[in-house]
């Protein structure tokens, strides 16, 4: 590697300055590790403020405004308060597992940042199995919540842990199937390759439904509203983290906030072109700005959903996943793979990075994806509505059933007309 400037080629520059190559490489890696692990923990201080301010605005409040300008230092004050609180381990708790769970919970999220490319040259590790790594590390987060719920020796915490298995393990299936789409389109599991493959056209154009699927399932994986059943305040008091106090609770809290931003980064990397933007190659550090700008869109949308939507019931959540999301995700992969077989041939050899050359293929993919997958969605919704009407008409008293049945016929004819 040639030393061009100290920011992009640290190791090469240190070697050129007369340092032992092995030591230079070690220092380069060490800096990378420190930055990758510290960045999410520092960003979360700002993220909590953004979330509280945003939720306040949605609910017509002002939000934190006392500590520092615009209340910006409120999170710092909160963190200091959490540190000074008494650190309680409940009697009968499994001490080691109880203390280990919050650490693993944060660890699982931060490990994901290691493979997300932030610029053409800056990436923690360029893994050939990047997407699979993300899924594998994400499943460790499930383990942390189960450990917390079991070791607390508390019924509410245990109930929260049971729900985790139902929710996180189920929603992993549509998530993995949605992650399969960019892998399929780029022909690689390496996140850097996936970003480079989007030089001509972002994958969101080629497969918009895939992005929607990934967004919904990551929202459920994070355990946030409308899927916040694992810490449902009104049913489980606080769910899996009920016995945690002080900074141990703070770690779970921080892990969740970082997770939302991580999901935004992941969606931006896989579907919105990652660090691609004007001057991405000329000024690589600008890629960080583009990536975070794209991730922030999804982050804010996730916050809006959390502030606006009520919590779903557990049976609604499970049937939504198994009867709707999973078949939709399977169908989406099939449609995308089938269309890509043909559309790929329309892109001329050697002009993969050219926007105009990609346009015809992208148009076919977009229309095909929306029509075929959207048609499936509509048919599922209509079938669900029909079965609900049938169930309603069976339950009612006989006299009313005739009226309802007639009303059903009326609705059916309306539907038929609309359908035509």
């Amino acid at each position, binding site marked *: 590697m040639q030393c061009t400037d100290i920011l992009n080629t640290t190791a090469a520059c240190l070697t050129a300055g007369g340092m032992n190559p092995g030591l230079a490489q070690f220092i380069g890696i060490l800096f990378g590790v420190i930055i990758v692990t510290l960045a999410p923990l520092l960003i979360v201080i700002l993220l909590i403020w953004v979330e509280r301010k945003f939720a306040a605005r949605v609910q017509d409040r002002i939000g934190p405004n006392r500590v520092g300008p615009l209340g910006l230092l409120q999170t710092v004050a909160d963190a200091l308060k959490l540190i000074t609180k008494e650190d309680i381990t409940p009697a009968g708790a499994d001490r080691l597992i109880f203390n280990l769970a919050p650490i693993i919970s944060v660890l699982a999220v931060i490990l994901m940042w290691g493979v997300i490319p932030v610029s053409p040259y800056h990436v923690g590790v360029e893994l050939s199995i990047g997407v699979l*790594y993300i899924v594998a590390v994400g499943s460790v987060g499930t383990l942390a919540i189960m450990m917390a719920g079991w070791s607390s020796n508390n019924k509410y915490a245990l109930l929260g842990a049971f729900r985790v298995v139902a929710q996180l393990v189920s929603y992993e299936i549509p998530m993995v199937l949605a992650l399969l789409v960019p892998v399929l389109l780029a022909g690689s599991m390496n996140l850097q390759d996936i970003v480079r493959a989007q030089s001509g056209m972002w994958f969101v154009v080629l497969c918009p439904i895939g992005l929607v699927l990934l967004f919904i399932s990551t929202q459920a994986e994070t355990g946030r509203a409308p899927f916040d059943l694992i810490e449902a305040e009104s049913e489980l008091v606080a769910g899996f983290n009920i016995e945690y106090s002080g900074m141990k609770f703070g770690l779970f809290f921080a892990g969740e906030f970082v997770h939302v931003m991580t999901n935004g980064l992941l969606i931006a990397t896989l579907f919105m072109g990652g660090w691609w933007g004007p001057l991405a190659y000329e000024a690589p550090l600008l890629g960080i700005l583009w990536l975070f700008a794209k991730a922030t869109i999804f982050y804010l949308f996730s916050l809006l959903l959390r502030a606006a939507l009520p919590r779903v019931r557990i049976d609604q959540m499970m049937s939504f996943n198994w009867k709707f999301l999973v078949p939709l995700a399977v169908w989406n992969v099939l449609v995308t793979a089938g269309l890509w077989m043909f559309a790929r041939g329309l892109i001329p050899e050697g002009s993969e990075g050219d926007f105009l050359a990609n346009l015809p293929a992208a148009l076919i993919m977009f229309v095909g994806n929306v029509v075929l997958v959207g048609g499936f969605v509509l048919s599922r919704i209509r079938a669900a509505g029909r079965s609900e009407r049938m169930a309603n008409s069976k339950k009612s008293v006989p006299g009313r059933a005739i009226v309802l049945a007639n009303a059903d016929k009326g609705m059916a004819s309306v539907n038929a007309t609309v359908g035509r």
Partner: protein
Amino acid sequence: MLELNVQTIAFFIFAVLSWGGALGLVTTRNLIHGALYLILSLFGGAGFFILLSAPFLAAVQVLVYIGAIAILFIFAVMLTRGMTRLREVVNRQWWAGAIISGLMFVLVIGGVILPVWGEGGTNPNQPVSDLTATTEDLGVALVDGNQFVLPFLVSSLLLTGAMIGAIVVARDQE
């Protein structure tokens, strides 16, 4: 000669993880602790896969064994509180377990280690990438008509059958 470099250190860390985890698994009386020790041991195994330049297998190990199977273990044990305080460490079938694990040990030593032991077994100058197949090779092998497409399809059919069977067994009588 044993050379002390980063890979050797990593190897010993993973060895301690997998051996310590396995030892803890068979000696603990608390089944949840046992499952967590198992996760530790599997994690060490995943580390070995990375050292052997098979990152795909490492990720699959974490995803399938830690993310799915070990979590199912813990879930099953959590539902049965009485199982978390076992009184005895060994049960009546300990001798069968000892025979099977002894046989497995001899098989692994005799079948895998001995052929590549000593002179002429392995060439230290040969890069590992020449010996090991890549993830691409694995993927192609699974769908290639001349290689493993039939076992692959049969096993997927078997899994589907098992899944449908589980649903039928668990279903309410109507």
